[in-house]
C-alpha cells in the first residue's frame, strides 16, 4: 500500500530527547485493535513485520512477562518485557527490551481511544532510559557491544517486511 493510500494519517513526534510518541487512526473497533495486540494467535500475524514471529510468552496482566522472537533472514531477534498496567480495551503499559541492547529498557504506553464511528485512535508513548541510567551503562563498557548491536539491528530493519 502506498503511503497516500493509507486510510489514516500517522504522526510521529519526539516530545523530548528521550520520548517517542506516535498517533494513528485505525479503521477498526477498539475491541478488535485490543484483540490484535493481545491475542497471541493474532499478534503472530503482524508483529513480526512480515517475518516469522514466535510468541514465547504473552501474559497480558500486571507483572506478566512477554517475549517474542522475530526470525529474519540473518538470524533471530528477541524482544521482551513485563506488563506494568493492563486496562482492557483502553490502555497498557509495558517495558520493552531488545536482546541486542540488554539493559536499555523502554517503557511503552499504549492508549486506545474509541472514536465512536468504528475507528480507533492508537497513541503510543515510549520513554527511554534516564540520562543517569544510560550514562552508567555506557561507562561500564557497553559502547562496543552497542555498535555490534546496531549492525545487527540495521539488518533486522532491512529484512523483508
Amino acid at each position, binding site marked *: 500500500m502506498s503511503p497516500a493510500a493509507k486510510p489514516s494519517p500517522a504522526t510521529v513526534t519526539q516530545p523530548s530527547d528521550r520520548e*517517542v510518541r506516535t498517533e494513528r487512526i485505525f479503521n477498526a473497533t477498539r475491541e478488535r485493535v485490543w484483540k490484535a495486540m493481545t491475542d497471541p494467535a493474532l499478534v503472530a500475524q503482524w*508483529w513480526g513485520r512480515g517475518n516469522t514471529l514466535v510468541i514465547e510468552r504473552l501474559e497480558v496482566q500486571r507483572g506478566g512477562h512477554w517475549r517474542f522472537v522475530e526470525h529474519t533472514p540473518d538470524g533471530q531477534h528477541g524482544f521482551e518485557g513485563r506488563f506494568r498496567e493492563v486496562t482492557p480495551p483502553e490502555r497498557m503499559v509495558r517495558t520493552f527490551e531488545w536482546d541486542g541492547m540488554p539493559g536499555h529498557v523502554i517503557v511503552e504506553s499504549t492508549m486506545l481511544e474509541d472514536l465512536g464511528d468504528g475507528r480507533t485512535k492508537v497513541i503510543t508513548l515510549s520513554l527511554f532510559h534516564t540520562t543517569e541510567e*544510560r550514562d552508567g551503562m555506557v561507562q561500564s563498557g557497553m559502547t562496543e557491544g552497542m555498535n555490534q548491536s546496531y549492525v545487527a539491528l540495521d539488518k533486522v530493519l532491512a529484512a523483508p517486511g
Partner: protein
Amino acid sequence: MGSLSEHFEMTLTGLQKHVRVLEEAGLVTTEKVGRVRHCRLGPRKLEDVAKWMTAYRTLLEQRLDHLEDFLERTKGTP
C-alpha cells in the same frame, strides 16, 4: 595526557591540540588533577542513544503499518 603522547609518538603540545578539538566536539572530556590531565570518552555517547531511538522508532512504525494491514485484511471478523 603524557602517556597518550608517548603512545601516539606525538609531542605533548601536538597531542593537546588534538585533544582540544575532540573535546570541543564532545568526543572526550578532560580533567586536570594536579599536574596531570586525564582524558576520558565524552558525551558523544548520547548519539548512541539517539541511534537506538531512531532504530526503535522505525521498528515501531513498521509494526503499526503491519497492524493496519492486518486489521484491513481481517475486516468483518469480531
